[in-house]
């Protein structure tokens, strides 16, 4: 039986005839932070999307918390309710206030009463320093603030796993820091995180393990010091020399 929190085994994903994931094996333990790096188009987003069943795999299995989520008898909504996702472009709901964005899943998916949900939502907003914006609408917030709210929305229901997909690449450089600080804080509190990022410096700081993806296969993985400083594979070396210049 799988003892990892997330266990991906031989996952294949094709778009039409074009294979984007060519047999991925990857596991993430509880409280571990794993960072996916790789060139644009290497399949990082696709891999994250197969995990919370926004894409259906064409082969292989994915276990989340011991449950095979690729089994067609498994309810997708229930799986997604236990996984937090943050997107590159925040995707906050523009017609809902900041607080409603954060409490929506608590109330409508997990059936938490409105007062309790609001209390929890406010506490969360307080933690990310945005309690004063609770009743504002997302378009009144800066990009960095919106992304922090998106993270709060994703963790409001205490998901077992957090998937972060290039959550800083739409942000101005001076706003990146505040979002990454929040991720560091989540790591310290024991969240299990699988994230795709182009921020190599951040990967070095926060990752327990770095995974290098190319053309839909995992080329190399290991502790950040090893992968980022002394990669074995020439492809990893080439990628790193390009992104770090």
């Amino acid at each position: 039986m799988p003892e990892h929190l997330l266990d991906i085994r031989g996952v294949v994903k094709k778009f039409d005839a074009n294979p984007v994931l060519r047999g991925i094996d990857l596991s993430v333990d509880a409280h571990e932070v794993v960072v996916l790096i790789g060139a644009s188009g290497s399949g990082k987003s696709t891999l994250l999307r197969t995990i919370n069943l926004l894409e259906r795999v064409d082969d292989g299995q994915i276990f989340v918390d011991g449950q095979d989520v690729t089994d067609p008898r498994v309810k997708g909504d229930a799986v997604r309710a236990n996984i937090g996702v943050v997107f590159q472009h925040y995707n906050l709901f523009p017609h809902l206030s900041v607080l409603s964005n954060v409490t929506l899943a608590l109330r409508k998916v997990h059936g938490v009463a409105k007062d309790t949900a609001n209390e929890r939502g406010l506490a969360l907003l307080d933690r990310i320093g945005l309690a004063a914006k609770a009743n504002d609408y997302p378009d009144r917030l800066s990009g960095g603030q919106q992304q922090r709210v998106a993270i709060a929305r994703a963790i409001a229901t205490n998901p077992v796993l957090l998937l972060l997909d290039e959550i800083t690449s739409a942000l101005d450089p001076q706003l990146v820091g505040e979002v990454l600080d929040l991720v560091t804080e989540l790591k310290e509190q024991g969240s299990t995180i699988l994230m795709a990022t182009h921020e190599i410096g951040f990967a070095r700081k926060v990752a327990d393990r770095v995974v290098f993806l190319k053309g839909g296969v995992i080329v190399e993985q290991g502790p950040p010091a090893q992968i980022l400083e002394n990669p074995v594979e020439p492809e990893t070396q080439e990628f790193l020399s390009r992104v770090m210049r």
Partner: protein
Amino acid sequence: MTSAPVTGGDGFAPLPPVSALELDRRHFRRRQTTKSLFVSLGSTVLFATVIAIVLANSPGWQIARDTFFNPDYFWSSFPKVWHGLLLNLRVLVVSVIGVAIVATLLASIRSLRGAVFFPLRFLAAAYTDLFRGTPFLIVLYLIGFGVPALGFNDRPIDAAVLGTIALVLSYSAYVAEVLRAGIEAVHPSQRLAARSLGLSHYRSLTLIVLPQALRKVTPALMNDFVSMQKDVGLISVLGAVDAIRAAQNLTALSYNYTPYVVAGLMFVALSWPFIRLTDWISARQQRREQMGGAV
């Protein structure tokens, strides 16, 4: 215009008083506004005067005025036409509710994905295509005279009920298309974000997609509503005694057409508030979308 300094309760230094330059600019803008107001007022009065003179000097004006704008007939026909209008209003209220339900269903069905739903999508598409292409008068005749001919009911069905059914059938097709356009204008990432939180397809639609879609198409929906408001008058062709039918009955007695003018004015008065409201909402939406811009 006071130029007291704005006190900074937020920890920032207070703003300096408004500069003389800015005060001068404001003064100039106000004068410009007043000037434009007078110019447009003057041209409107001039235009109205010209029309009045042309009308009054036309050869048939005397007769036209007596047959269409006779004050005696105006007031005497008013109560009956008003009573008819109440029927129009009742039909309108019921139809709007019917249209809201049927159109939302149609639009939701048309935005379902997946091969399983192809037959449903196809039916909904066929329905909207058919009814958007058919003139409302023909739908009205087919329902109004066709349904009773089927003979399901022993007693005759009320013409107003048949008219309501025809209105709902026809307008649902239009409104469904407007709603669908709105649904498609909501970025797909919004649906993905909703599903990622564990919301079901139905919940994502009703809590996330539809509210945003409605905002986007509010002006178009209100236009459809205004046009429905006057199309309720067409139920008179089925024999329902509404405002137009009441006017027609009165005209048949006196050969004076003033009651039609009364009915017409009532319809205008009915729709006018909504037309203004539609304008106001569109303008507000446009302002919001170009927030901050001066042009």
